[in-house]
């Protein structure tokens, strides 16, 4: 694997006038950078391979500095060398300005190999110059390569820039665990998905982080002996650590998990069934003539990372009873799956687990083009649940 990560940054490019940005100068600077690297490597230096498999537009959240994504971009360079366009915008400053610079990041896949390098253009714009950013992006996108837009903040349709950036993208990556207002933003997300139907695909790093848990829960249904119990599940308990920004909110990840179960198992929401019992929030679904109650239980902050799920159980409360659970171990380093039928614990397994970091999740998302229809359906269900609670 990578021996070292090197970043080579150019000087800041002269902006020809306060009114515009010279994309020709940016491209010339990029060419010059590769020209320099195309020379024969010196002693101790490795030859350079310039690689690009995608365009990645990184739209920073308000207040974020470009440097905050350096390590993440380093991490994805090796598996998805991309032309990265890092965009930092502040629509309301006192003095409008625009600034741009180029950089290369290189990694060595193997000790005896060549350096794999890809390029980055960083654009900082403020005030009235923010409106120029999409046209700059349009010029800088590498042809014939897919375009990913990674929105670090909450994507609001009210943001004039977001729609224009989404126009470029084959796939938009967000992270619902970073929502400013978990409840309201999830509902907005469902709206965004509906509005962008047929135009761009949306994906969520928070949803990606659910994959290990979903894998283990799905595995219960692979066991023929368990199915007669699973068909009678009437209660789902999801214990979560509340999100940092709003301790009273249900973690979006818990809602996504519930939405996934409801969608996959074809549970229909029971209108006006949202209720609270002590600190727990309940919601009913109906299926096959029975009611399935989903119970969201907030865990203490010490139970793990904010916004994550500690335990998820599929329960059959009527005799013969059963519990099929996935529980995160102390320290968050393991996930344990357990099956208990008629009070007897069956084979379980402890799996190594690590909350995926942004770089790891992003690498995985860059492998996928096209809509994740399952996710889109799940968000709709989760948003509907959230809307009911907002109303109660």
């Amino acid at each position, binding site marked *: *694997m990578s021996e070292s990560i090197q970043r080579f940054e150019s000087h800041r490019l002269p902006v020809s006038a306060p009114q515009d940005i010279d994309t020709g100068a940016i491209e010339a600077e990029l060419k010059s950078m590769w020209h320099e690297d195309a020379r024969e490597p010196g002693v101790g230096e490795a030859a350079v*391979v310039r*690689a690009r*498999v995608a365009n990645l537009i990184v739209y920073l959240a308000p207040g974020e500095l470009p440097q905050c994504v350096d390590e993440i971009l380093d991490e994805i*360079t*090796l*598996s*998805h*060398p991309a032309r990265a366009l890092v965009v930092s915008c502040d629509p309301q400053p006192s003095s409008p300005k625009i600034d741009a610079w180029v950089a290369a990041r290189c*990694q060595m*896949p*193997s000790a005896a*190999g*060549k350096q*794999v390098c890809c390029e980055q253009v960083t654009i900082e714009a403020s005030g009235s110059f923010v409106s120029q950013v999409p046209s700059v992006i349009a010029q800088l996108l590498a042809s014939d390569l897919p375009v990913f837009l990674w929105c670090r903040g909450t994507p609001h349709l009210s943001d004039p820039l977001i729609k224009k950036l989404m126009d470029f993208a084959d796939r938009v990556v967000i992270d619902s665990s970073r929502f400013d207002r978990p409840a309201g933003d999830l509902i907005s997300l469902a709206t965004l998905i509906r509005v962008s139907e047929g135009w761009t695909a949306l994906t969520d790093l928070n949803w*990606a982080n659910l*994959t*290990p848990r*979903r*894998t*283990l*829960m*799905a*595995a219960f*249904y*692979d*066991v*023929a*002996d368990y*199915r007669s119990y699973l068909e009678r599940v009437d209660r789902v308990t999801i214990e979560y650590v509340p999100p940092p920004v709003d301790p009273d909110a249900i973690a979006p990840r818990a809602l996504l998990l519930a939405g*996934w*179960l409801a969608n*996959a*198992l*074809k549970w229909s929401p029971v209108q006006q069934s949202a209720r609270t019992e002590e600190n727990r929030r309940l919601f009913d679904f109906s299926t096959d003539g029975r009611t399935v109650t989903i119970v969201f239980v907030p865990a203490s902050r010490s139970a793990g990372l904010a916004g994550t799920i500690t335990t998820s159980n599929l329960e059959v409360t009527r005799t013969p009873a059963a519990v099929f659970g996935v529980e995160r*171990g102390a320290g968050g*380093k*393991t996930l*344990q*799956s357990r*099956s208990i039928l008629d009070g007897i614990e*069956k*084979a*379980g*397994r*402890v*799996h*190594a687990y690590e909350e995926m970091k942004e770089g790891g999740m992003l690498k995985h998302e860059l492998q*996928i083009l096209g809509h*994740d*229809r*399952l*996710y889109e359906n799940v968000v709709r269900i989760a948003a509907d649940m959230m809307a009911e609670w907002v109303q109660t």
Partner: protein
Amino acid sequence: MPDTYQNPLREGLRLERTAEPCAIIIFGASGDLTKRKLVPALYRLAQERLIPAEFAVVGTSRTPMSHDDYRAKMKDAVAQYSEAKRVEETVWESFARGIYYHPGDIGNFESYQQLASLLDEIDRTRGTSGNRLFYLSTSPTQYSEAIRQLGAAGLAKAKGGSWVRIIIEKPFGHDLDSARALNTEVAQVFHEDQVYRIDHYLGKETVQNLLVLRFANGIFEPIWNRRYVDHVQITNAESIGVEGRGGYYETSGVLRDMIQNHVFQVLSLVAMEPPINLSANSVRDEKIKVMEAVRAIPDGRVSEFAVRGQYGPGAVAGKHVISYRQEPGVNPESGTETFAALKLYIDNWRWADVPFYIRSGKRLARRVTEIAIQFKKVPHRLFGAEVAETIEPNVLVIRIQPDEGITLRFNAKFPGQTTRVRTVNMDFRYGASFGVQLSEAYERLLLDCILGDSTLYARRDLTERGWEIVMPILEHWQGAKPQFPNYEAGSWGPHGATELIEKEGRAWRRL
């Protein structure tokens, strides 16, 4: 009948294919393959959450041992041979609870009855649902007995709703007669759908990429034929020697060990017609079809189409190495070939008159396995005689190992006032473009077998056809005493191999 239940929670993206509950029973529990490849692969699959909790590994061999003793041995094996070179304690403890050991004699019926009882118990306690995968990782001389005993003990038949499969390691037979005999014995006990003849080359990422390259790109198929292709070279070169396996290699040789199986599998993927879909039998039907079209080597003319060699002393990667005949377990007068080069033709509309050159050997200059499709030269010289000399034919190279990837060689103008032409390479390298760790072949193959996907496994007809092709060569070589050794270790093989291709105005690729 295998379970056809559609798990509703597996729909959608992201969730990888995962195995059903099952028990894998490994014959040859303490063998090299089990320690180096099989158990590390299963552990890795468990780490990746690709095999369920309801899973068991049962190792069986003659050595008396308890379950815990065997678990400890397998833990050491995983720590030594897995990619990560370590085990995570809590994860291992959980995985190891599903590992069992059954001391048994392959030739003893009672041993199989005890095994059956153990498997029933594991079904009850681990929830393995009656699904069984028998893995023959023993000496090939024991295959027949193991298969017969499995049948006699009723272990080859699946109980209602479950499945039983068997994986058989290479070599599959020693020659055509023994391969047919073994296939007959297998067929008396198992249905062909239950039989998985493993060829680990088919589990390699770049071998699988052959199908994607050919059939997911529209530009290659139109030129993938005799009109545009001059010849095909398949090279399977190893720089290592027999690595202490001289005793086995004396009974085999490179034609049996590599060409008849691995290389022919690759050849069939290169030369086959597009299948109608990617079902196992659709792909394998096309593979056998093209191998049936391989022209038989005419009687009395083997030496025009096949060359053999045996390495003498030399130097590889700067180190002096001994000759094959000096290797432990090897007869000092051995006539076993460690190198072979073949020229084959495929008599069909696509490939008529296109030679397929194959070379495979040990103690060659470097380790490389690749397929090179060399296209015909340009039909008309536009650039003057002097420049024309520098114009090389285009070559598409699929590199299987090391440095997996694909290269297209083409001609480009050298910058400057005059027209000078230089060949350049357009490279795709897995390492540079995707930068991901390529999964081990055995991980993919084991998971495929548990999932019931036999696409990457050899079917009965193809294994027998491979023997049919090489039998005239083997019989001719058996009857003629060779002048060995005839190539220096660290070279590219005997002179005869060079003559084989150069007499037709071609040359082996310089690797």
